[in-house]
């Protein structure tokens, strides 16, 4: 079953095209990651999908409702957690839940029961009366998720839910998301953390308003990083790496953390040969090994080649 389907969805602001003919489908129960740099059109797309912003052209259906014709039906069928999880910090935890529940039409005992159930599920049971503003970021984020789930939506949109949250909290938050999807809920999530995107069943990559890649994480890596990936660590790598650029068999050299990532042809130079070449080019003691490409490599390759205007 299709939870979300867009066809040539576009949004212009004056002369600027924020989202440019984006077409994709998301299956029910899928965790769909939506990646892209700031300003690539992720949030604009989400705002159209949740009925906050009318498309300029194209169409989208969410939970079977057309977002342009029936935004109110869409709003009732989905959950949404906005970028800065906008809770009322001056109110107690439970009041935030009760308010958002009532906003979605829940009432009385059913609302209280559902709120209690979700508090339990996100690990906030016993903290009902705590002032929301006094909670650490990770717990606030869980509360915001609980607020988005009160009315049992079939689809939830999470716009950078883990921004500014510590790694431990991020990990446990993703456990919650996977649990949610396992229960049949569709999760549409944007994130800046590429390691998190590995949790997604499929990933769409936005560059300058266009959807330039859409596949499973493994599929993306195979398509966009077909070469071998070598990781070099050591000293003086930046200058030495630059000299290796364009050498036979070497496709790309990019700084990565304190080291270098090199993409080389399948039949290109070995790790040992690259190490020798780097030392010859002026690097100090270096260590080079083969590595599996990460989504970050994919992201860099996509952005690179989109800038050059070429397909993979």
């Amino acid at each position, binding site marked *: 079953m299709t939870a979300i389907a867009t066809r040539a969805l576009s949004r212009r602001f004056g002369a600027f095209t924020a989202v440019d003919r984006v077409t994709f489908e998301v299956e029910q129960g899928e965790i769909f990651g939506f990646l892209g740099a700031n300003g690539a059109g992720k949030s604009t797309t989400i705002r159209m999908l*949740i*009925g*906050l*912003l*009318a498309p300029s052209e194209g169409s989208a259906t969410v939970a079977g409702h057309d977002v342009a014709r029936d935004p*109110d039906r869409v*709003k*009732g069928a989905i959950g*949404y957690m*906005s*970028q*800065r999880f*906008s*809770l*009322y*910090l*001056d*109110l107690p935890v439970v*009041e935030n839940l*009760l*308010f*958002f529940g*009532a*906003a*979605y*039409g829940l*009432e009385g005992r059913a609302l209280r029961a559902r709120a209690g159930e979700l508090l339990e599920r996100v690990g906030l049971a016993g903290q009902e009366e705590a002032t929301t503003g006094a909670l650490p970021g990770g717990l606030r984020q869980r509360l915001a998720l609980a607020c988005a789930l009160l009315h049992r939506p079939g689809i939830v949109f999470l716009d950078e839910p883990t921004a500014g949250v510590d790694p431990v909290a991020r990990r446990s938050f993703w456990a919650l998301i996977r649990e949610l999807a396992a229960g049949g809920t569709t999760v549409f999530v944007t994130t800046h953390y590429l390691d998190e995107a590995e949790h997604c069943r499929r990933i769409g990559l936005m560059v300058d308003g266009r959807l330039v890649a859409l596949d499973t994480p493994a599929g993306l890596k195979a398509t966009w990083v077909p070469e071998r990936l070598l990781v070099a660590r050591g000293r003086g790598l930046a200058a030495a790496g630059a000299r290796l650029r364009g050498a036979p068999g070497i496709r790309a050299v990019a700084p990565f953390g304190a080291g270098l990532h090199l993409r080389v042809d399948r039949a290109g130079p070995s790790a040992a040969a690259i190490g020798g070449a780097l030392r010859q080019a002026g690097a100090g003691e270096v260590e080079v090994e083969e590595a599996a490409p990460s989504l970050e490599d994919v992201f860099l390759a996509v952005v690179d080649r989109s800038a050059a205007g070429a397909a993979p």
Partner: protein
Amino acid sequence: MIASRLGRSLVRIGAMAAKETLHVRRDPRTLALALAMPVAMLFLFGYGVSTDVDHAPLAVSDLDASDASRALVRAIAGSGEFDVVARRAPGELEPLFRQGSAVAALVVRHGFGDELRRGRQAEVQLVVDGADALVANQVLAKLDAIVRAESRRLAGPGPDRAGPPIEVRLWTRYNPDGKSAYYMVPGISAFLLAITAVMLTALAIAGEWERGSMEQLFASPVGRLEIVLGKLLPYLVLGLLELELVLAVGAVAFDVPVLGSGLLVFALGFLFLLGMLGQGLLISVLARNQLVATQAGALSAMLPAIILSGMIVPVENMPPPLRLLSRLIPSRYLVHGLRGLLLKGNGLAVLWPDLLAEALFALVVIGLATARFERRIA
């Protein structure tokens, strides 16, 4: 179907209102702003900024020096309202006013006693320091009352007169003692209600923008009008409480009567508040930022309420362009309506234009705010 939709809508409005009430309850500063400030200001205006005048310094130019003129001056000095601080020729009065050592002067022309004796209309001249319009008004009113009473006595039962022995036209009806509280309480009510209502809503809604929760609300099935109504409701109740409080303090501390119907007071206050809350809403929809909303809210509520409402400067005394402008200011109708209700006991027959004007203003601003609200998104 329609009933159940309305029901769901009411649930959502109720949820908004309940949440807003919680915000207010958890923020003692808001409550203090809403309830303590008005009372404090009422006392400040009622006592500290009292415009009541007693023992006002008075200069006298008695050119007539007759028995009658001396008796008149004695009557004025003996009233307790004025102290005769100087006796000068009319040409020497100017410096006294400049120094502020006299706020008024009584000039009795030569022939005053004769005119009275012959039963003609006698003339005294009152010169008043107009720099302080309020004091001038009071002084004129009091002097007029004393002079009139005294001249009637001095003239005695003489030949039939065409009119009163001395004609001074001054407005003292409904406030014969010249108590400023009578005059000020309705004005202050308007001023305070305007400020708190506009500021509180402006803050409450701008806060929702700043927090980012407005987008969250827009993404939920809660409609724009439901957000607006839910947000306004608690402040409407708070504002009405505030009005009752101000009137109660006015009645207890300053003996300001409430001669008219309590229901009409309520209606007048309700419609006025609706307009002010709408104004706050409009500001916050446009400003989207608490700081700007506070400033714009305070200014847009305070200035018209002080200057154009008739609270201090009577609408009748305004230059025509301002008088015209004041027709757009709801505080004008509240002040006018409340004065009529409290001091004269006016009923609906006299009051309806004020109620209508307030209702129109409320309708227009809430309509505008809701429409602007809608256009922000989409």
